[in-house]
């Protein structure tokens, strides 16, 4: 059943994401094509900069629309009329949540990859070659400095990215699920819950900064910073580890809220 759930979820994404990717790629190809007529005239500059602006809008739209579609898909497929079908399938609530979350992450990463490909296409030629050369040089330098830790950093970064993306989507899922408990204006309630969460996080972060500033000496922050500065390899691992742990905690909490709300308080209109 999970396999079928994945199949239909991926199809639902593809029908929206794929055309969007194709449009972005098309804009990149047109942008590169325009550069073939470079003659430094006013007309050329207008067309060239228009294509650059169109490409930038395309990049932002591609990333944002993938995020928005992932959130919208969760809402419409589970809490609109479609929920009557989704929740009467022989599938458990955790399966619904995780399949949606995983496919949303895959889509988000596929959009990022498509943005990178499009960037390569629009800068195809000397610029692209130079960028690749610079990236290769940086990786080489980094490897010489940190040796096998470079591989570990990459693994940690990828893991941190996946868990962070999963936690972000799960946060939206939790807000939507909690919003369903409102009698009216459930979407507005979900948006409200998201902003309240965001406000609480801001307040907690401010309190943390104030505490650290006030007790700077008692907490021996100087020594701690000096220690971290002297041990860059450990600091990098520690930084990645903190991101992974904090996002994992968030992910678990948001998942528990989403699952428990759907399981115990589901009330489709």
């Amino acid at each position: 059943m999970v396999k079928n759930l994945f199949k239909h979820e991926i199809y639902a994404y593809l029908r929206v994401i794929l055309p969007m990717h194709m449009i972005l790629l098309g804009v990149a190809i047109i942008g590169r094509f325009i550069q073939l007529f470079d003659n430094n005239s006013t007309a050329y500059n207008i067309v060239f900069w228009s294509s650059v602006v169109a490409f930038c809008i395309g990049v932002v739209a591609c990333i944002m629309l993938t995020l928005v579609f992932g959130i919208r898909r969760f809402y419409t497929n589970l809490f609109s009329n479609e929920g009557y079908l989704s929740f009467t399938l022989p599938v458990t609530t955790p399966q619904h949540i995780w399949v949606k979350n995983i496919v949303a992450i895959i889509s988000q990463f596929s959009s990022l990859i498509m943005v990178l490909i499009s960037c390569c296409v629009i800068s195809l030629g000397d610029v692209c070659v130079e960028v690749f050369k610079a990236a290769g040089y940086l990786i080489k330098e980094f490897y010489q400095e940190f040796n096998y830790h470079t591989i570990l950093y990459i693994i940690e970064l990828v893991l941190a990215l996946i868990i962070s993306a999963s936690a972000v989507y799960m946060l939206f899922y939790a807000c939507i699920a909690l919003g369903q408990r409102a009698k009216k204006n459930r979407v507005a309630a979900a948006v409200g819950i998201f902003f309240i969460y965001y406000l609480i996080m801001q307040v907690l972060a401010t309190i943390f900064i104030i505490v650290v500033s006030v007790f700077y000496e008692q907490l021996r922050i100087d020594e701690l910073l000096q220690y971290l500065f002297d041990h860059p390899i450990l600091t990098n691992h520690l930084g990645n580890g903190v991101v992974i742990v904090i996002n994992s905690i968030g992910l678990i909490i948001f998942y528990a809220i989403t699952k428990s709300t759907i399981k115990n308080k589901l009330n489709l209109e």
Partner: protein
Amino acid sequence: MSELLRCENLTKKYANTTALNGINLTLESGKIVGLLGPNGSGKTTLIKLINGLLTPTEGTILINGKTPGVETKREVAYLPDNSYLNSWMTVKQIIDYFKDFYEDFREDVAYTMLNKLGITPDVKLKTLSKGNKEKVCLILVMSRNAKLYVLDEPIAGVDPAARDYVISTIINNYNPEATVLISTHLISDIEEVLDEAIFIQNGDILLQKTIDEIREENGKSVDALFREVFRW
């Protein structure tokens, strides 16, 4: 006939409202049962509880001996009272969807019924008329070889000719060993096909009897008794 559905002291409360008030109900297999009551009587709440779309506040509900969950969803075919299909899908895609998730789905039966209606598989659901969309929903549900069919207001909002189609589709396609629970307040249209009737009002079961018992004991049709019981 074996027991298919059992509700014991089933209660569902929303904030300040009691939608179901500790009802006890048993349904046996192989029957067509009418769940009859005015709007707001608790019919849809009971149906949602049977389908696991709501959790009871108190009491238990057993379908074939199991509480609502993945196993019961394999055995219950549900038709909600609203259009619940992904409108961007084609008819063929939604049939594939049902085929993928329900092992008891009879693809050939679905296509035969669609063919009779003249609905082509490649047409998108959003381009169908409201009536045809409702018929497709019914076809999908009745193409399953389920143990319990739960149909919420299948004939409300359709013209009299379409009602006949809906009723004949139910009669001709349900598994005879299964039970069909039909929620409606349009009793005269379905009275002929019912074996049993349940009257529900304000979350309480007022009556559960066979159609023959109702006619013999009261000397009137179910429709006439309904009008008498639920008179304003």
